[in-house]
C-alpha cells in the first residue's frame, strides 16, 4: 500500500506544520484545530503526521495500548506481560460514527455465538496514548461532541450500557480539521484544542506550482519521491525526539511567565488554559529550536497559535482574530 504523502514535502503552511510538530514534542499541549478552505492540504498534513511520531512501547494485546501491565484494564484478556513497539496510534473518527463505535459496546459476536457478555473496545480505546483525528469536526453530531468533551476532560472512558459497566484510560491528542463555511464550532470544543491554525491556499504563484509538482511526483514517481522525502521526515522525527529530551532541561525564566500572563490579560482570553497552553507551546518551540532557555521571541512566535481561538469573538470586527493577536502581541511584547 502507498504510504501517505510525507510531512516534510508539504509546501508552505508553516503555521500548520509548526503546530503539529509542537504537539508531537509535548502532547500535553492538547491537540490542533486546522480550519481552512478546501484543497489546502489539511487532511494530507494530519495523515502525514503519523510518520513523524516516534513509536511507543505497549503491552502486547492490550486494547488501550497501556505502557505497563498494571495499566491494562481488568476486562481485557491479555496473554502475558510481553511488550512490543507500535507506531503512535492515529485514529480516524468518521463523522457518522455511532456512540457504540466511539465508546465501545457489547461484543455482539460473542453475545450471539457464545451468549457471552463481553466488551468490544471502541475508537477511544484505540486512540489512547495517541491521536484522535476528526475531519470536518464542525459537522460532528452533538451527542458525540458531548461525549468527546467529557472524555477529553477526564482522560477516562466510562461505559454504562447494555448491562456493561466498563472504564478504561482514554488520553489522546485531539486533531480536528474543517471548513468554517460549513459551520462554527462550539466554544467548549474549541477550548479543548490547544492550538489552532487557519490555513489558506498559497497566494504565491511559485509556491502553488511547487505544490502541484510535488503532488505529481508523489503520484507518478512514487519510489524516488518517497526516498527523497522520507529521509527528510526521518530527520524531523529525530529532531522531535531530541526536543522531547531537551524540553526537560529547558530553563523557564521568571520574565517569560510574566510575559505570558501579561499577554493573556491584554488579549482578554478566557480562563487559564490559554496561559498554560501558550507556555507549553513556547517551551516546546524553544526545545525544537535547540535553544537552552525560553525567550520572548519564542512566545511571540507561537502566541497566535495558542490564543487565536480563545478570544471573545467580536462578530462585528471584520479583521480575523489572528490579526488582533498579532497586534496585541506587538503592543505587549514589542516587535
Amino acid at each position: 500500500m502507498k504510504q501517505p504523502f510525507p510531512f516534510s514535502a508539504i509546501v508552505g503552511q508553516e503555521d500548520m506544520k509548526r503546530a503539529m510538530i509542537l504537539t508531537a514534542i509535548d502532547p500535553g499541549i492538547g491537540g490542533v484545530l486546522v480550519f481552512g478552505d478546501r484543497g489546502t492540504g489539511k487532511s494530507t498534513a494530519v495523515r502525514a503526521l503519523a510518520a513523524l511520531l516516534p513509536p511507543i512501547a505497549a503491552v502486547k494485546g492490550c486494547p488501550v495500548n497501556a505502557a505497563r501491565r498494571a495499566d491494562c484494564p481488568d476486562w481485557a484478556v491479555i496473554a502475558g506481560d510481553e511488550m512490543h513497539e507500535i507506531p503512535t496510534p492515529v485514529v480516524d473518527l468518521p463523522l457518522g460514527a455511532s456512540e457504540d463505535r466511539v465508546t465501545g459496546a457489547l461484543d455482539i459476536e460473542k453475545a450471539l455465538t457464545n451468549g457471552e457478555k463481553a466488551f468490544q473496545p471502541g475508537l477511544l480505546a484505540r486512540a489512547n496514548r495517541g491521536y484522535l483525528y476528526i475531519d470536518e469536526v464542525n459537522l460532528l453530531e452533538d451527542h458525540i461532541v458531548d461525549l468527546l468533551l467529557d472524555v477529553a476532560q477526564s482522560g477516562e472512558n466510562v461505559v454504562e450500557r447494555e448491562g456493561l459497566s466498563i472504564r478504561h484510560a482514554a488520553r489522546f491528542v485531539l486533531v480536528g480539521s474543517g471548513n468554517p463555511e460549513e459551520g462554527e464550532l462550539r466554544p467548549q470544543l474549541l477550548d479543548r484544542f490547544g492550538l489552532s491554525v487557519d490555513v489558506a491556499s498559497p497566494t504565491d504563484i511559485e509556491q502553488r506550482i511547487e505544490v502541484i509538482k510535488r503532488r505529481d511526483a508523489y503520484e507518478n514517481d512514487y519510489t524516488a519521491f518517497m526516498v527523497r522525502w522520507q529521509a527528510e521526515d526521518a530527520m524531523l522525527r529525530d529532531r522531535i525526539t531530541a526536543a522531547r529530551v531537551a524540553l526537560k532541561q529547558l530553563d523557564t525564566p521568571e520574565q517569560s511567565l510574566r510575559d505570558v500572563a501579561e499577554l493573556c490579560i491584554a488579549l482578554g482570553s478566557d480562563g487559564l488554559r490559554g496561559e498554560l497552553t501558550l507556555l507549553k507551546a513556547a517551551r516546546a518551540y524553544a526545545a525544537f529550536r535547540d535553544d537552552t532557555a525560553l525567550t520572548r521571541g519564542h512566545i511571540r512566535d507561537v502566541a497566535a497559535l495558542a490564543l487565536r481561538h480563545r478570544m471573545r469573538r467580536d462578530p462585528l470586527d471584520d479583521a480575523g482574530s489572528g490579526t488582533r493577536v498579532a497586534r496585541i502581541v506587538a503592543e505587549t511584547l514589542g516587535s
Partner: protein
Amino acid sequence: MNQLARAHTALALLAMDPALGGLVIRARAGAVRDAVLAALPPHTRLRPAMGAEALEGGIDVSATLSSGTLTQTRGLLARSGAFVLAMAERAEPYLAARLAATLDAEGARILIALDEGIGEEALPPALSDRLAFRVDLEDCALGDITPAPIWPAPALLAQVCTPDDLAHTLVLLAVRLGITSLRAVGFALRATRAHAALMGRLEPIEDDMTAAVALVFAHRATQLPAQQEDAPNDSPPEEPQTPPDEEHQESLPQDIMLDAVLAALPPDLLAKLNAGGTDRGASGSGAGQKKIGNRRGRPLPARDGGPAQGRVDLIATLRAAIPWQTLRAREAPHRTGPHIRAIDLRRKRYVDLSDRLLIFTVDASGSAAMARMGEAKGAIELLLAEAYARRDHVALIAFRGAGAEMLLEPTRSLVQTKRKLADLPGGGATPLAAGLLAALAMAQQARRKGLTPTIITLTDGRANMALDGTANRAEASADARTAARALCAARVEAIVIDTGRKSEPALMQIADIIGGSYLPLPRADARSLSTAVTRALED
C-alpha cells in the same frame, strides 16, 4: 464540444486515469442520462439515505440468526469498481465525508455523482471538489444522443511525459479564473496527460491542454480574467492595447487555453460572472441545512416490530430473546447458539431536535433603508455568533421597490454571511406583502428540510406597493393582510419589529393576524435587535 461529448470524454479520461476522482452529472433522470451511464463498466449504486451499516458492512441479521454463527456483510464501500451516487444533491455531510475519505485513500476509485438538484441545490462541496469533471445535461434532447466515440489506439498513460511548463501555465490560468483549490490544478495536469494517452500521443500537445482545462476549470471559474471585463469600458476596440506589463510570449498558450475555458463555461455561470456576482466560488452548503431529523441522533429505546420497518436493534433483540432460551433449546436441541424468533426483533428509533431557522425579512425601502439593513446584518451576525449552541440558522430576505429578494440563503456560517452581505441594496417603495410571501415560501421549504422556521420582519412603515406592482396604499395593505393570513394558516412563528419612531397600528394589526408578537423598537441597533429577538424566541 457539446455537453454529451464532454460527458463521453470525461468518462474515457476517468477510465484512463481513475485518480481524476469522478464526474458530476447534472441532469434529471431520463434517457439522456441513461445513455451516458450505459457506457459505464459494472458499478455500485449508492443512495444518499444509506447509513453506516450499508456502507461499511455489519452483521447479516438473517444469516446470523438462522445459522447461529456470526455472518458479516461486506459494506458497499468495500466493493471494487466505480460508484454511482444517485440523487447526490441530497447527500448528507456524513456520506460526503465518508466518500471523500474513500476517494482520498484509494486513488483508483471513481465516483459518478448524479445531481438532480434544482436551483441552488447541489452536492456537498467537499465531494464536488474531489471530482475532476462536471457536465450539465439539462438541455440535451433525445436527438442529441450519440454513441460513445471510438478513441484512436490509446497509449500507455505511464509513458506520457509532462511538459516542463505545464504546471506553471495551469497554476496561472487557475489564478486568473479565480480558482483557489489546488486540487483543480492537479486534476487539470492529470487530465492533460490522460487526454494525450487517450489520443495515442506520448507527448501532450495544445489540444490536450485545452480539452483538459475546458473540462476541469470551466465549471470552477469564479471570475472572468481582468482584461475580459475591462475591455468594453476601456479604449475603443479599433486601437487594441498591448497587455500591460505581462510577458507576451508566456501569455500566448494561456490565452488559447483561456478561450477554451470561456467557450466551455456553463451559460448560467457565465451570466452570473458577467453580472459581477462572483459568489467567491465557495458557496458552502451551510451545514446541517440538508439534515432531516429523526434518522440519527440520540437513540430512543427500541421498539418491537419486524425488520421491514427500520433497522434492527440487535442488543434489544437479544435481550428480548434471553428469557426464552431454555424453553426454546428444549424444543430444538440439535441447534447451537441462541434461539431467536421473529417475535424478538426490536427496531431502532432515534430522536434529533430539529434546528431553528430565523428568516429575517427586512424592509429595504425609503431613506432609512441603509441604516436598517446595516443593523439587520449586524444582528444576524451577532445571533449567528452567539447562537451556535442553540443551532440556529439564519436567512435574509429584503423587500423594496417591486418585490422581495433573497440576499442570504439559510446558513449557519458566519464566514459565509460576511461574504454575502458585503453590500446591501436599498431604496424604493414598501411591498410588505411580497416580503411576507417570500418569507413564507422559504419557511415552508425549510420545514421540508426538517428545520423549524421563525420569520422576523423589520419595517418602519405601512405597505404602499401591492402584489401586482401598483403603488396603491389601500390595495397594498389588503395584500399585506392576505399574506399575513397565509402565514397564520401555515402556523409559522413570527415576530414583527417596528423600527419606526412611533408605533404603527397597521403593523400591529398584521402581527395580530399572523398570531405573532409585535415589538416596537425605534432606532434599533444590532445589539438591541439581537437581544430582543433572543428574548422573544425564548418566551
